[in-house]
């Protein structure tokens, strides 16, 4: 049988008796029925008023879940608003708000709007986190590796650090890792990952694209220069971009970019991944891909740039914005000569 934690038990016992009605915080109507009706009717001004009124409240709720991460809290507010907008199976928007109104009008469950909103929002956050965790199940192939390997996997694929940042993080520990060891471990991780998981990695690549501008692009033929980056999350350039006014734009560019990468021929895609993400030299990529000549690597990279460029153009992404988001690729490919 289930036993509630003491605090929980005490809490629901309080609610077993008749409770006096609670009051809404200052500035909030108990039941803003008029506003909700206008929102449901599709009035844009009403939705704007709704967002302006409840944005701060939603942010406060999100704050607890985001563990003081401003960006994540903002993201969660959008998650909540999207959840409120969500249509029912018949395609009518705001089905949650409709349910709230129904409950007032038909069932006589007269909760305050903020109480209801807090409860709904928590469910939306929980689903969102679950969904995110679901995408983060450790692949079977990685489970079998040792602790350090799994740690590298986490840093690179989950926390979205670039490989040099991951190395920087591990090098700063009590038992620092030699760079050669780091590289061979990374090698092992990549060879263990199946094609399916590699696609998840492409998606991660997109999330941290701008962070790849760290340091200089690899020199073809030579050993790749690894710059030990400042491992603090706030030092990551992609975070700075996320915070800037362009974060929404950057997000969209990256989304289109993911599409573009998936549309590349398989060989081209692999070369791009090995060279741009794993920062392997042209010669290393040649060996892994089994090409006879190194020039083939540069030809594939040039092809990738052409295709990505025209894809972005076709999707109507402004050239300047695209360049800002994928500037690293431009620089990388220029250097190799197309």
């Amino acid at each position, binding site marked *: 049988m289930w036993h509630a934690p003491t605090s929980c038990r005490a*809490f629901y016992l309080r609610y077993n008796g008749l409770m006096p009605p609670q009051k809404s915080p200052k500035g909030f109507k108990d039941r803003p029925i008029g506003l909700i009706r206008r929102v449901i009717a599709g009035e844009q001004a009403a939705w704007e008023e709704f967002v302006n009124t409840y944005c701060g409240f939603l942010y406060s709720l999100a704050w607890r879940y985001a563990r003081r991460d401003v960006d994540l809290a903002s993201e969660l507010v959008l998650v909540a608003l999207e959840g409120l907008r969500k249509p029912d199976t018949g395609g009518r928007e705001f089905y949650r708000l409709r349910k709230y109104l129904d409950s007032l009008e038909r069932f006589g469950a007269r909760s305050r709007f903020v109480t209801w909103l807090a409860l709904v929002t928590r469910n939306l956050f929980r689903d969102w986190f679950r969904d995110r965790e679901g995408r983060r199940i450790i692949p079977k192939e990685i489970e079998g590796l040792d602790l350090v390997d799994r740690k590298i996997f986490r840093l690179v694929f989950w926390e979205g650090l670039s490989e040099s940042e991951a190395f920087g993080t591990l090098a700063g520990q009590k038992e620092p890792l030699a760079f050669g060891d780091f590289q061979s471990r990374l090698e092992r991780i990549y060879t263990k990952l199946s094609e399916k998981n590699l696609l998840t990695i492409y998606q991660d690549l997109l999330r941290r694209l701008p962070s790849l501008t760290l340091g200089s692009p690899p020199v073809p033929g030579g050993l790749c220069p690894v710059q030990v980056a400042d491992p603090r999350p706030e030092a990551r350039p992609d975070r700075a971009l996320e915070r800037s006014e362009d974060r929404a734009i950057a997000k969209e560019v990256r989304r289109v970019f993911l599409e573009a990468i998936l549309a590349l021929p398989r060989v081209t895609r692999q070369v791009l991944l090995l060279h741009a993400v794993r920062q392997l030299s042209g010669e290393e990529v040649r060996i892994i891909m089994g090409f006879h000549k190194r020039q083939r690597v540069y030809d594939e990279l040039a092809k990738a740039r052409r295709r990505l460029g025209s894809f972005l153009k076709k999707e109507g992404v402004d050239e300047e914005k695209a360049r800002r988001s994928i500037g690293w690729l431009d620089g990388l490919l220029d250097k190799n000569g197309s």
Partner: protein
Amino acid sequence: MTCPSTEELAAVYDGNLKGRQALKIRDHVAACPRCAHELHVLHQSLQSVPKAPTPPGDLAAWALRPRQKSWIAPQVNLFSPHRRPTK
């Protein structure tokens, strides 16, 4: 009885559920660990609201920014790239 709806549970918290329905739901909540937990977390959430900082000034504007449809990539099944939908 199955767990009450979000709307009913919120009304339970506010002490605004009247009549026989209220009694039934309260009985349920007292016996159901899931609902009790939901109420507990709801309580904590509402308690923490006044302690949270104010959101970034542009958050509402950002949330209201129109979504540019032309940029939104069609749904891609990440796990089978070789069967992408053709446009």
